[in-house]
């Protein structure tokens, strides 16, 4: 075989020509900005959301007030949206101008704070810090004090229940008496047993949806401030309630937030559901024809926080100023109250808990439940947990064990040891 220098050169040159031909057409990157001619720049803001953000309703209002801005809303599945954001941050491009980030992922993203716009550079600390629940403000802050997000909502806890199904099981239906049925979680499970014995149907949707709220009511979560796994504290309390519910046969064992779970709403497969404020929007959207069949009452075991989100602005954005303008508009009291009314998300600014617009609000879908009073009360006096860096994966590992018990593949007596083992494995992988 001939392998002269000239030949190599020729092949190389050919490759170069072809490479130029390919890249030639991608010289101009796609730009969202166009000059509209009247001096202001036309901007399209891409906003990624999950669940019920309330932005769908507010979009047109903002666009009307700011004719140079178009909002392109991209709504997706909870986990998928966060993973997508993570990938785009690694890739260095493609992220939305504004990304909604939940409590379950905020630790992961705040440890990459240099990938996000430091909102304090835009003066966020001075304008907003005093207005927020102090822990909400801190949770989206990196260790060196960069602020990556402005809080939207917090997930104060309550219990949602189906009045029609309760009635059929000869249980009380008004929220006062229902709340009195379950001062403790044990009493809640006893009520569930009565319901299941009477109707032959399951009482709650899944054991993991008991584990999470009970865990969030405890003083400590999976990890302490030194990032050490503490399974015997909060997690054990939540796990025990979950096991009791499975053993009592009151759980429908539906995988939460998945299609079968949504089916479960429509097919009356369960009658009670722990409800953080953001859950209300999901119930309304999933089962719109159950209007007036739901009500909200106190949850056993007191206040807690489950979930809640922030608006973040990835540094890749070309429209940082417009994005910040939209975010600071969204967290204004007027918009926060509007979101609270339309989808139910509870604001994270305590001043609003005293606002008559919140306090006097009654939610028609939930039999005119005074959601403002119910959730504001739980949110104002809750003790937030420290969420470790590995909180998300640890939770998944423990939920997996709970689900295995629900499938009947693992005895509840052996489950705790298994949960500790799996959680330790996740904790150790943190290095």
């Amino acid at each position, binding site marked *: 075989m001939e392998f002269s220098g000239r030949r190599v050169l*020729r*092949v190389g040159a*050919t*490759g170069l*020509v*072809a*490479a130029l031909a*390919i890249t030639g057409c991608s010289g101009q990157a796609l730009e969202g900005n166009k000059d509209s001619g009247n001096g202001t720049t036309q901007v399209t803001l891409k906003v990624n959301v999950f669940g019920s953000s309330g932005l769908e309703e507010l979009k047109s209002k903002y666009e009307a007030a700011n004719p140079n801005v178009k909002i392109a809303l991209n709504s997706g*599945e*909870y*986990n*998928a949206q966060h*993973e997508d954001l*993570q*990938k785009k*941050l*690694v890739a260095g491009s493609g992220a939305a101008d504004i990304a909604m980030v939940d409590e379950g992922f905020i630790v*992961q993203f705040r*440890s*990459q704070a*240099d990938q996000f716009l430091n909102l304090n550079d835009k003066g966020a600390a001075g304008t907003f810090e005093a207005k927020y629940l102090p822990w909400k403000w801190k949770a989206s802050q990196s260790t060196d004090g960069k602020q990556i997000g402005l809080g939207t909502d917090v997930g104060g806890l309550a219990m949602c229940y189906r009045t029609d199904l309760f009635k059929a099981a000869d249980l009380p239906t008004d929220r006062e008496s229902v709340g009195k049925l379950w001062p403790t979680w044990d009493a809640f499970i006893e009520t569930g047993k009565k319901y299941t014995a009477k109707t032959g149907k399951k009482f709650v949707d899944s054991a993991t949806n008991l584990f999470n709220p009970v865990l969030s009511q405890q003083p400590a979560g999976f990890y302490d401030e030194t990032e050490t796994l503490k399974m015997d504290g909060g997690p054990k309390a939540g796990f025990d309630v979950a096991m009791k519910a499975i053993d009592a046969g009151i759980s429908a064992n539906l*995988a939460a*937030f*998945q*299609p*079968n779970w949504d*089916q479960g709403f429509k097919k009356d*497969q369960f009658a009670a559901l722990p409800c953080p404020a953001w859950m209300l929007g999901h119930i309304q959207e999933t089962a719109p024809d159950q209007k007036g069949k739901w009500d909200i009452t106190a949850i056993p075991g007191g206040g807690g926080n489950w979930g809640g989100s922030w608006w973040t602005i990835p540094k890749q954005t070309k429209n940082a100023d417009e994005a910040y303008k939209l975010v600071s508009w969204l967290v204004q009291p007027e918009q926060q109250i509007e979101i609270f009314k339309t989808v139910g998300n509870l604001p994270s600014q305590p001043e609003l808990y005293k606002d008559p617009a919140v306090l006097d609000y009654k939610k028609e879908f939930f039999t005119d439940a005074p959601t403002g009073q119910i959730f504001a009360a739980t949110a104002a006096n809750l003790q937030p947990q420290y969420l470790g*860096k590995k909180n998300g*994966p640890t939770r*998944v590992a423990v939920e*997996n*064990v709970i*689900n*295995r018990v629900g*499938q*009947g*593949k*693992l005895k509840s007596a052996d489950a705790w040891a298994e949960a500790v083992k799996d959680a330790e494995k996740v904790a150790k*992988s*943190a*290095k």
Partner: protein
Amino acid sequence: MALTDVRVARPEEPKHAPPNRAKFWLYRFDTKTVPYLLIAPFFLLFAVFGLFPIIFNGIVALRNWRLDDPTLTGWAGMANFSALVQDTDFWDALLNTFGIFILSTVPQLLLALMIANLLNRKLRGSTFWRIGILLPYVTPVAASTLVFAIFFSRDYGMANWLLSLVGFGQEQPLDWRASTWSSWLAIATMVNWKWIGYNALLYLSAMQAIPKDVYEAAAVDGAGPWKQLWAITVPMIQPVVLFTVILSTIGGLQLFSEPMLFDENPALANGGYDHEWRTIAQLIYKVGWRDLDLGYAAAMSWALFLIILIVAGVNYLATRRLGGGK
């Protein structure tokens, strides 16, 4: 050499030399360079989307790259690979991958052979049947898997409805995702459904190249259809069998979409609450994008690459032996 020398040296054409010379270079360019130019796009694309990722993956595999902890960076040496050897998750996933691979590849290729054999006979509307068996192949895998995921669901799935017709699981419906065997079976079903038709068509096209008189001679000698299939058809389409075995090996060991979307919550990349059906590809995704440990995920990718090379090599040798070994 000699020819060009003579042409250039012709004394009676000095005036036309420059255009001729240009023509000569154009001709040389056309024959020597243009072929490379024409095949270059493929190699460039391969370099960008094939070779570069493989090499880059290899480099990443030797480094620490954790998205949740940007401070942990730099060369890791073989640390990722030695962690891999001790990681039970990896070996469990490997076992699952092979289990599903065997459950899907063996019936798939055998059934494809049978179907091709049937289609090779004189049938009414043969084109209709041939196109028909290819339909699963042109269905997007995500779409078909989502349908199968509902088909195999616990409470309202059609699979359980069919089982209940024959009196099974009326008390307690079968939870397809709870046991290893049932989940493997469900996923293998999806893979088989998709690929049988494709392989059958490949076999069929090879079968049609076999001369009819071979069969006639065999029939005269008293060989039945079964004997003909194994003694004539299979050895004579051996190159295509080899091709399908290699392709199925690669596809089977990289199985991702089906196990991923079979999960009740696909975004978690669990492969079952006890990881009953988590394949290697799924584990790589989980380690990379959920645990945010890109270095370790890259090491797993490379390990998978090597495993596929070995298994494909073994299958290649075995199939050559099977197809006559002459």
